[in-house]
C-alpha cells in the first residue's frame, strides 16, 4: 500500500490545462440544440461510445481523453455503459453494413434530447474505406449527426474541442 501511495504522490497532478477552444476544423451540422438543453448538459454529460466499424485508432484516442493528462471527467464528461443513460453518442468508424442495425438500435435506445458526435475521418465521410458493399460511409448516412470531428485519428484535444462545440 505504501508503495502505491508513494507512486501517487511522486506522480502528482499531471493534467494539462483544458485545451477547449472553438476549433474551425470541427464542423457542426444544422441540427440546433435548445438553450435549456445546453444548460442542463453543461458539466454533466453522459457519453456512450459506439464503434460502427472503425479501425480502433479513434478508440485509442477516446481512451486517451480519459487518461490523467486530458482527464475528461473534470469537464463533466463521463462515459456510461448503456445507451439508456447517455446524453451523447460518440460514434466512430465508417458505418459497416454489419453494424448498421446495431447502430440504429443504439441510437433509438438513447433518450431524447440526444446528441451525436461523429469521430474521425471515417465517421465524417467514410474516410479511406469510402462507400462500398461493406461500408455505408459516414455516420450521418445512418443517424442524424450534430458534430463532426475530423482527423485520422483526431487527437484527444480535438475530441475535447468537439465536445466543447456542443455548448457554443
Amino acid at each position, binding site marked *: 500500500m505504501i508503495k502505491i501511495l508513494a507512486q501517487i504522490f511522486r506522480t502528482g497532478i499531471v493534467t494539462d490545462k483544458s485545451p477547449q477552444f472553438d476549433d474551425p476544423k470541427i464542423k457542426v451540422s444544422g441540427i440546433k440544440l435548445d438553450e435549456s438543453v445546453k444548460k442542463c448538459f453543461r458539466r454533466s454529460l453522459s457519453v456512450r461510445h459506439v464503434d460502427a466499424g472503425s479501425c480502433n485508432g479513434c478508440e485509442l484516442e477516446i481512451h*486517451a481523453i480519459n487518461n490523467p493528462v486530458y482527464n475528461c471527467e473534470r469537464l463533466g464528461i463521463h462515459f456510461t455503459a448503456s445507451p439508456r443513460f447517455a446524453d451523447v453518442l460518440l460514434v466512430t468508424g465508417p458505418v459497416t453494413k454489419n453494424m448498421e442495425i446495431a447502430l440504429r438500435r443504439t441510437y433509438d435506445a438513447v433518450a431524447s434530447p440526444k446528441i451525436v458526435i461523429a469521430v474521425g475521418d471515417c465517421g465524417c465521410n467514410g474516410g479511406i474505406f469510402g462507400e462500398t458493399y*461493406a461500408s455505408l460511409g459516414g455516420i450521418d448516412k445512418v443517424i442524424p449527426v450534430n458534430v463532426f470531428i475530423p482527423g485520422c485519428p483526431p487527437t484527444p484535444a480535438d475530441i475535447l474541442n468537439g465536445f466543447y462545440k456542443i455548448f457554443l
Partner: protein
Amino acid sequence: MKRLVKALIATFGENIKADENMFPVTFTVPEERFADAAKILKESYAFLCAEWTTDDTDSGMGFSVYACFREEGEYLIVKAELPRDNPQFPSLVKHFVPAYRFERQIQSLMGVIPRGHPDGRPWIKFEDWPLNAWPLRKSFDASIAMMRCEGQYSWLKVEGEGVYEIPVGPVHAGIIEPGHFRFHAVGETIINLEERLGYTHKGIEKRFESMTWETGVKLAGRVSGDTTVAHSIAYSMALESMTHCYVSERAKWLRALFLERERIANHIGDIGAICNDAAFAFMLYQCSRLKETMLAANLRLFGHRFMMDRVIPGGVTVDIDANAKKEILSELDFLKENFESLVRIYEENSSLEDRVSNTGILTSELARELCTVGVVARASGLNVDCRVQSPFPPYDSIRVEAQVLTSGDVHARVWMRVVEIRASIHILRSILKDIPAGDITVNCDAPLPDTTGFAAVEGWRGEIIYWLKSGHIGEINRCMVRDPSSVNWLALEQAIKGNIVPDFPLCNKSFNQSYSGNDL
C-alpha cells in the same frame, strides 16, 4: 534443403511443382492432394499461418487456393488450382484447427467450397447478405450497395439442466470494438463460448484491389489502427520483395524504432487495462499516463501520435536528428524508472495476484494445436517470434532474446508484456546507439505483372502476414492480410472454458485481439 521442402518432396516426388522464383517457395499440388500436403507438413511440426484463395478468372483460369505454413523460420506455401465452375478443395480442418475459420471465410467471401468442412455457416459475411454475394470474386462490383435479405444465424445450442445463455454485444459496455460473444453458463461457470465476429468488416481486401501500390500502404496502416506501424511495414516489405527494391539500412533501423515504440506503447496500455479489469484502477491511470508521454513524444518527433503513414514502400518519411535521439533516450529513462516501480507494485499486490493467476489458462498443447502467435503463444510456452526465427533487417543485427513463459494464464500474458517492454527499451537503446547513416527513402517501382510478394512482421500482437499478387496490367490483383487476431481469437474461446463469467473481461483484455484486423 529446408525441412518442410524436404518433407514435401520426399512424399510427392516428381508429382509436385515448386516455383523457386516465388518467395516463400510455393508448391503446386493437384487439388485432391491439397489436404495430403497439409498432413505431411503437420507431421513435420509445421504451423498453419494462413489460408486464402484468389480469383484468376480474368486471366482465363479458375480459382486458386493457398495455404501458408511455418516451421521455425521457414515459410512455405502450398497452392492448388481449382476449376472455374463449382470450385472446391479438400478442407484442412482435420489437420489444422485454425483452418476452421479461414475456410469459412473463403466460402463466405469467395464462394469456393472447402469439401468436408464441419461447419457451413457463414463467417464475416452475415446471414442477411444475398447468398451469391462473394465480394472477393472479380465479377463482384464492390461499389454497389448491397441489398439486405432475410436470414438467421444458427447459434450453437447447449442443452441440459441449469444451462443458460448470455448474449453480449455487438455494442459493448466499454470503449472497444464491436463483436458478439455468446456464453453458455451453469451457475457462474462458462461451459462454452461462441464468438461471432465480422461486425467491422469494411471490405479491406477488396478495397486494396481498387488502390494503387503507393496508396495501398495507407490502407494497410488502417487495417488495425493500434498496429499501424507493423501493418505498414509488412505491406511495404511484401511490395519491396516483388520489386527488388533495396531499402536503405537507415530506413530499416528507423522502421524498427517505430515498431518497438508501438510495441511498448500498446503493451503498457494493455497492462493498465488488464489490471483495471481486476478492479485495480491505479494501474490503469499510471500506465495510461506513461503511454500518453510516448504518444505525445511521437507527435513531437514524428508528426503523428501513432506514427501512421510514416512507413512507406521504399523507406520511411521521417528521420531523427541528434536532438530527437537525446529526447528519446531521456524519455526511455523516465519510462524505465516509472515502469519498474509499477511492476513492483503489480508483483506485490496479492488481490491482483488472486485474479490473474490461474485464470484463463491456455495450455501449451492447445496453443500449439490452434497455431497461435505472438504474446498469447509465448505466454503458453511456444517460442514463436518473427524477430527471432526469421529476423527481418535490422533484427538480424540486433539480437532479440527469445522469451517464453509456460503457465498460459492471464498473469503469464501480463508478464510476457512486462518482459517485452523491458526488451524493447533495450532494443530502442541499441538502435539509437548503432543506427547507420544514409538516406531514408529509395524509389520503389511498381511491380511487374503476375508476380507475388510476401512478408511476415512481428507486430505487438504477433506475426502479421501480407501476401500480394499483381495482375496482368501490374495492378493490385489480391492483397491477403493475416492479422495475428485471425488465429488468436480461437484461443480465447478455448481459454475461457471453466472460468467464471465475471473473469471474461479480464481474460479478453489479456488476449486483446483486434476485431478490425480479423474482420477486415
